[in-house]
C-alpha cells in the first residue's frame, strides 16, 4: 500500500479507485462500538484527570457574525486562565479578520490562534479567494488554519478537485498547521467520511476536523470513531501522524469524556494529547469548569458563577 500511496493522486481515476477501494464502514458496527464505549464509567481521580485533559484540548471557538474585538479579547483571557486553577486551553478559533486581535491578546501565553478560512462555512468561492483568505490569516499571525472542503465536488465524485484545493491551501499555510473540515453532516455516509478523511490526509492535512458547527448533525461519536480509525490506519501505512478534531455539538463534560475514551480505545494514547486531539467548542468549557468545581468542592456548581461567553 505504501508504494502506491505516493502516486494515488496522479489522476482523478487513480484517486477515485483508491478511495473507493477503501474497505466499507459497517454502520451498525460503528454505531454500536461508539455507543458501547460511551457507557464507560469514568469517576473520581480518573474523571479529574480527564476533565483537565479535555480542558487542555479545547479549541475555544467563537464564529458568529456578531463577533467583536472585545468579545475575542474576553475569550482569550478566559482561554489563558479558565479559572479555578484549570489548565489553559489549546487554542482559540476565530474568523480571519479577528486573528490579529487574538494574536495580540495571547502573545506569550502558549495558547495558539486558529483561524477558519477558505470561505468558511460553505466553502463556496473560487480557489483564488480561498488561497488569499488563508494567506491573509497566516500573515495576521494564525498558527493553525481550519479550512473547509468543497462538499459539492466531493459528493459529485470530483475527488481530484478537492485534493488539489487542499494541496493549494496547504501551500498557502506555510508553517501554520492545516486542519481540514470534512463537514460530515453533509457527507451522508460513514463510507464517505472514511474517504474524505483519507483524501484530506493524502493531500497533506495536519488535522482532520468533523464539522463547521453550522450544520446539524455535527460531531457524533461514530463519525469521530471512523475518523480516528482513518488516522490510525494512515499512520500504519505512511508513518505520518494526523490529528483529529471533533467540533460542534459537544456541550457537556460527559460528551467530552466519551470522546476521550474513544480516542484511547481507537487510535491509542499517542493521540491523547492536545497536539493530536482537539475539541472544538464554546459552551463546553463552562461545563467542564463546573464539573471540575463539583469535584473540588463536592457541591453541584451553577452557571451564575462562571463567565458567560
Amino acid at each position, binding site marked *: 500500500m505504501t508504494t502506491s500511496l505516493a502516486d494515488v493522486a496522479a489522476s482523478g481515476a487513480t484517486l477515485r479507485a483508491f478511495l473507493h477501494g477503501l474497505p466499507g464502514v459497517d454502520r451498525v458496527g460503528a454505531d454500536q462500538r461508539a455507543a458501547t464505549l460511551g457507557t464507560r464509567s469514568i469517576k473520581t481521580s480518573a474523571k479529574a484527570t480527564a476533565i483537565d485533559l479535555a480542558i487542555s484540548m479545547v479549541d475555544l471557538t467563537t464564529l458568529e457574525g456578531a463577533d467583536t474585538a472585545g468579545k475575542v479579547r474576553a475569550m482569550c483571557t478566559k482561554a489563558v486562565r479558565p479559572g479555578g486553577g484549570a489548565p489553559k486551553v489549546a487554542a482559540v478559533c476565530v474568523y480571519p479578520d479577528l486573528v490579529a486581535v487574538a494574536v495580540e491578546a495571547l502573545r506569550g501565553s502558549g495558547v495558539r490562534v486558529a483561524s477558519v478560512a477558505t470561505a468558511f462555512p460553505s466553502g463556496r468561492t473560487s480557489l483564488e479567494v480561498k488561497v488569499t483568505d488563508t494567506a491573509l490569516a497566516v500573515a495576521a499571525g494564525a498558527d493553525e488554519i481550519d479550512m473547509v472542503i468543497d462538499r459539492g465536488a466531493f459528493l459529485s465524485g470530483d475527488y481530484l478537485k478537492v485534493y488539489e484545493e487542499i494541496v493549494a491551501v496547504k501551500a498557502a499555510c506555510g508553517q501554520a498547521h492545516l486542519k481540514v473540515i470534512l463537514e460530515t453532516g453533509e457527507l451522508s455516509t460513514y463510507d464517505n467520511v472514511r474517504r474524505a478523511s483519507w483524501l484530506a490526509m493524502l493531500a497533506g492535512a495536519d488535522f482532520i476536523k468533523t464539522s463547521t458547527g453550522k450544520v446539524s448533525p455535527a460531531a457524533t461519536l461514530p463519525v469521530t470513531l471512523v475518523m480516528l480509525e482513518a488516522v490510525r490506519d494512515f499512520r500504519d501505512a505512511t508513518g505520518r501522524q494526523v490529528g483529529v478534531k471533533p467540533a460542534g455539538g459537544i456541550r457537556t463534560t460527559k460528551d467530552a469524556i466519551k470522546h476521550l475514551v474513544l480516542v484511547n480505545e481507537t487510535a491509542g494514547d499517542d493521540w491523547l494529547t492536545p497536539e493530536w486531539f482537539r475539541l472544538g467548542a464554546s459552551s463546553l468549557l463552562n461545563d467542564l469548569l463546573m464539573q471540575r468545581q463539583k469535584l473540588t468542592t*463536592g*457541591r*453541584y*456548581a*451553577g*452557571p*451564575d458563577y462562571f463567565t458567560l461567553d
Partner: protein
Amino acid sequence: MSRLSVRKTYKLYIGGAFPRSESGRSYPVTSAKGDFLANASLASRKDARDAVVAARKAFPGWSGATAYNRGQILYRVAEMLEGRRAQFAEEHGGGKRTALESVDAAVDRLVWYAGWSDKITSVHGAANAVAGPYFNLSAPEPTGVVAVVAPADPLLGLVSVVAPVIVTGNTCVVVASEPSPLAAITLAEVLATSDLPGGVVNLLTGKQAELAPWLAAHMDVNGLDLTGVTDADLALRCEQEAAENLKRVLRPVQEDWTADPGIGRMTRFLETKTVWHPKGV
C-alpha cells in the same frame, strides 16, 4: 375468565417526562397498616441534578409568562385534580371520608393560590415615597429554582407547598414524602396534562437524607423549603449548606394544612426589585 389488572409503575417526574431513576433503584411503599401498595422509584442525587437542570431551563418561560396565565394554569390543575377525585382518595390512605375531604381541600387550595397570581404584586409590591423627583416602585419577582422537601400529608400538604412556590413564577424540584409518595406521582400526571410547562414542577420520590443535602448545596438552586424535613440534624445540615450561595430558606415547620395558609409561603420565595423612574419635573 378473569382479567389480569394492569398495575401502574410509579416513576419520577422530571422536565415534563416520567423517567425511572437513573440509579435503577426502587423501594416498596406500604399502607399505614403495612400492606404492600406499590414500588416507587428511589431517586439518586443525579436525578436531583437532572431535575435542577430541567427546572432552570423552564424558569425563563414560566417566570416570563403573565401572572394571569399562571393563574389560569393553576386553576386548570385544580380542574384536573377534581376530575380524579376518586383516584386520589383511594391512593390517599386513611378513612374514605377524611381522604375525600383532604382531596377537596387540595383542590380548593389550588384555586385559592391561583387567585393570588395577579394580586401578589399589588399586595407585596409598593409605590414608595422618596425624597426626589422619582416614581419609585418596588415589585416582587420570583427567586428562581426552589428545592422543596414536601411534608408527610400526601396530597394537601404537597399541594400547599408546591402551589405557593410556582404561582409567583418560580420553578421547583420537589422531594415527595418518603412513606407516601404515590399521590405525588399521580399529581404529576395531573400536572403533565394541565398546560403546566414541563420542568416547572419536578417530582422526586426517595429518601430525604439522600436528596435534600445535594439540593441544599447546589449552586444553581436559589431557594430551599425544608417544610417536610423531620430530622433536626438533617435540617441543620441543609441550612448550613444552603448558606453557601445565600439561598432563601424556609425552615421546617409543623403546619395545620387545613388552616388558612396566608401569603407567607409565597413571599418567602420572592425577591424585590425597586425601580427609580425620573418624573421629569
